[in-house]
């Protein structure tokens, strides 16, 4: 065993380090460390991915039209950025997705609550929800056009049919995992049906519900991309889905890749800025913080 004094010295150093490590109060250093921990690794991952791509391309395994050069894609991307059209494209899709998702949450949450808590409703429409989830969005496009016309209404219809079942199902499985003892506690504390849902069921199911919301967001976003293919017209504006389709219909791989990257960025951004912090705070508050 090491000499005690020496150990003590080392410990002093280490505990000194620990003080830096475990902030006793939110210090100014925090944002920097946080950046290093949350933003840097995905950035590194992206850089590595691009490097591999560049290598693959440089090795010329595949002809250019099969795998465009990163630079070509970047040029296309940058052209969209520098002429400003990228902001319009992202904004068009983003605001639709946000509205569609919000409406999906407003409809899906009570629906999920009903399905989870009323056995009859569960067995009647529970499987239907799962069935609807597996219906591809394109299936609804003809009906949407006929019923709602080439308007935003048709797009929202398709998006909602994608997001609502998924959000509802997420809530159902979140609720299914709630410890029954908490509900019994609620009853003895005087919670009625509604109060129990509001004060016990929903907060208790929150971690699972959040997971469902995340998947629901992915569903609405994908459905939106499909819905945006319905029509490209000045009234509807050019969204990400339509931009992707443009690349596709011109057999223009750089545009297709630029669109994929844009969609990825938006997805990653939403995850990093919205879902990740939400999840962290919810899990932290319950002592479930991830490793």
């Amino acid at each position, binding site marked *: 065993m090491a000499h005690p004094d020496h150990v003590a010295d080392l410990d002093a150093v280490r505990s000194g380090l620990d003080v830096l490590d475990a902030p006793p109060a939110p210090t100014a250093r925090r944002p920097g460390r946080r950046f290093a921990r949350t933003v840097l690794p995905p950035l590194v991952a992206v850089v590595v991915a691009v490097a591999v791509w560049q290598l693959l391309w440089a090795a*010329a395994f*595949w*002809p*250019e*039209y*099969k795998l465009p050069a990163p630079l070509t894609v970047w040029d296309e991307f940058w052209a969209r950025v520098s002429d400003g059209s990228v902001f319009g494209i992202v904004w068009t899709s983003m605001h639709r997705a946000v509205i569609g998702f919000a409406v999906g949450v407003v409809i899906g949450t009570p629906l999920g609550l009903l399905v989870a808590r009323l056995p009859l409703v569960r067995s009647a429409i529970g499987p239907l929800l799962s069935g609807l989830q597996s219906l591809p969005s394109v299936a609804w*496009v*003809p009906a949407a*056009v*006929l019923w709602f*016309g*080439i*308007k935003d209404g048709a797009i929202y219809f398709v998006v909602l049919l994608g997001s609502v079942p998924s959000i509802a199902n997420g809530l159902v499985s979140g609720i299914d995992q709630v410890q029954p003892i908490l509900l019994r506690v609620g009853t003895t504390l005087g919670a009625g049906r509604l109060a129990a849902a509001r004060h016990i069921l929903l907060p208790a199911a929150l971690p699972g519900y959040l997971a469902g919301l995340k998947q629901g967001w992915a569903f609405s976003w994908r459905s939106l991309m499909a819905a945006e*293919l*319905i*029509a*490209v*017209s*000045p*009234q509807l504006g050019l969204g990400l889905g339509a931009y992707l*389709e*443009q690349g*596709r*219909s*011109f*057999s*223009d*791989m750089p545009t297709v890749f630029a669109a994929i990257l844009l969609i990825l960025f938006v997805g990653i951004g939403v995850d990093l800025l919205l879902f990740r912090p939400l999840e962290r705070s919810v899990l932290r508050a319950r002592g479930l913080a991830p490793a």
Partner: protein
Amino acid sequence: DRATGDTGGSGGQDKGAAAEVRLGYFPNVTHAPAIVGVDRGLFTGRLGATKLTTQTFNSGTDEANALLGGSLDIGFIGSGPAINAFAKSGGTIKVISGAVSGGAQLVVKPDITTPAQLKGKTVATPSKGNTQDVSLKKWLSQNKLTDQVNVANLDNPQTFDAFRKGDVDGGWLPEPWSSRLVVDAGAKVLVDEKSLWPQGRFPTTVVVVRSQFLAEHPATVKAVLQGTVDAIDWAGAHPAEAATAVNDGIEKLTHSKLSQAVLDRAFSGITLDIDPDSATYSQLAQDSVTAGVVKTAPGLQGFLDLKTLNELLAGQHRPALDAAGLGNG
């Protein structure tokens, strides 16, 4: 320093007849020669021991990608995707024959009778930058209507639905959709694209082949072309039967068929012909610049390779076709 493509140029040597040839087309009237040829066994008859595998597509882009990806050897495809694929891939594919020409119209609501009445209205085309889109935009600019007409890009079936619902006022559409709008939805023809081209001919469907396949298996390509010629000849001799045969072929592939009225009208609008209308491609490429969908016209040098076709024609004592300067030189 990079290869232009693993299948680029016409490298590779003649390896005789292929064991298998993979043929792609659409279950659609504009692909009539392919449907008739497959259905009546005209390709297999000419191919002998070579196995024929068919694939049907819904999108020209996917079919072009399949050709570029090497999972298809010969395809009946729209002229637009063919030009695109050629330009993007640096000559990985070539057009070896025409198949169908004509068959696109601007159909509109019956109360629209002059171009000027289109102001403020919405007209649909299948997708941005495709043949009909370019034609419409060029026509609009010629009529000084650019920016006064809303151009929406919609899948043809969606255009049909949207027209019936009243969301669009017309469409520049290929067959059979222009006929469906006229027959099933009461639209009227405002412009027949035929009237805009010399002799009323413009390429709708062409036959393309992977350059490498052509170099390695010219005999097989020739056999498929022979089958195409047979199909077109037969259809020319029996127009009514041909229409029915196409409809039956479509039904076999998709469980759905066109009504007789639509079929007849659509068939009368198209011409089955092996002539690829070589002279029009440069114009088509130029038009897309005029219409503002691309900035520079793609170079089409080497787009056409009519050698095999001309050999065939020579064998039948028919006049050779000219590549209008887009051949291999």
